[in-house]
């Protein structure tokens, strides 16, 4: 094994260790099909390793990974085949509490443009301007998408227990 091959293998392992869970979490929110998840994994990591983007920081690198993964998942969701054919793969929400499970189920049912904001806002902890920059959209769009996502959840679940300030 040559040094360059060894170096490459090391880079691959590091990238997987670092971002596999993030990519998996995002793909879990968007995709219901394991082969699609595999596709996303392969493409996102290949892109990362072949990319010549100079990351300013780890946060920048992570934001880049989130953006690439979300875009890839949305592309797959858009395809005619996936829209019209029910998958035989059934995901399982890894939480025992029935109320929590139901809430997450509703999150999963949201439109992709609402799901991405819910993920980035609630899980990754980005604020609205950061999300707008990451998703390359106007801040107002991000604000209204977040508001609509919340309203939809509120409508389905009832009450104001789940409201958060921006």
């Amino acid at each position, binding site marked *: 094994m040559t040094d360059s091959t060894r170096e*490459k293998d090391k880079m691959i392992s590091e990238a997987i260790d670092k971002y596999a869970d993030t990519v998996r979490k995002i793909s879990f929110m968007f995709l219901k099909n394991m082969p699609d*998840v595999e596709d996303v994994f392969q493409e996102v990591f290949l892109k990362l*390793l072949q990319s010549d983007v100079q990351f300013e920081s780890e946060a920048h690198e992570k934001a880049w990974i989130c953006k690439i993964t979300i875009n890839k998942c949305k592309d797959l969701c858009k395809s005619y085949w996936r829209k019209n054919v029910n998958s035989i793969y059934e995901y399982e*929400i890894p939480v025992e509490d029935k109320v929590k499970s139901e809430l997450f189920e509703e*999150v999963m049912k949201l439109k992709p443009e609402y799901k991405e904001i819910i993920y980035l806002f609630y899980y990754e902890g980005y604020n609205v301007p950061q999300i707008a920059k990451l998703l390359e959209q106007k801040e107002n769009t991000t604000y209204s998408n977040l508001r609509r996502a919340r309203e939809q959840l509120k409508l389905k679940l009832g009450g104001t227990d789940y409201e958060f300030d921006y």
Partner: protein
Amino acid sequence: MNSIINEVLDNVKAENELKEKTIQFLKASLSEDNTSNIIEFKRKSKVQFRKLVLIACTFLVTLGLSIAGYATYQMPVAYVSIDINPSVELGINMFDRIVSAEGYNTDGKTVLSACDVRNYDIESAVDRIVEVATEKNFVAKDGSSVISITAETNDQNFADRINSMSNNGVKKAIGRSNYKVTIQIDSVSIGTREEAQKLSISPGKLKLIKKLQQLDSTVTVEQLKNSKVSEIMSTIKTKKVEAKAIEKANKAEEKKKGATVKKNNDKIIKPTPKPKPAQKPKATTKPKKNLKVTPAPEITAIPEVTPEPTPKVKKDKKSNE
């Protein structure tokens, strides 16, 4: 909601199998001896080649369309000749624009050398030509000049349009100079134009010469080739007047002749009335005493035909009985 999402997603982790598969894929894709990079390169070069072909095709199609468009634009579909004298012919394309201008005689060439009317619309081109002709004193101030406009096309509607626009052009130019002219408008077929081209004159002038030839067969095209339109037209008028006078004289003479012939005919016809067969025996049997009639031989023969010997026959019959 924050805590619920965190709780759920914290439990979502990349499966080892998934990780392993991805690692294998990445190793295979990024290894030095793997052909994927080459395939990628080949695909890229193929794409580049396709792009080049597409660009070349687009360029060729654009070039072809441009050439065809230019050729169509430059192709005259009708002509208009302006005769004052100078004689000028303008080629008109399908967009009513002038694409060619030709002088049929020296004066026409002189006018065209002073103005380039290509790409003008019909009205402006005629306006400009008449203006230059006026400036160069080809148009008489006394109003004796005739400007002949002749549309040359097989399409009558197009001919009418050309003539209307040309007429406006002449009127504009003449209106500015305060001259007076007579505008003669006509249209001919492309066939007549070709005939005129062979004779090196404008079709408008040829049509006028032909009109004149109908009145005076001794006139030739060569004689009137360089004459002014006004001259040809005045000759036509004179010839028409002459022809009318001759016609009148002829008619009068014919009337006279007709009258004398009638008289003679009356004389000849009256004495020989048709003899009625019923009257003939009367004339023979009872001739009037006061008239000396010399019986015609036929009439004299009639008594011989009358059946005189019938009593004899009766007598014979009786005798037989």
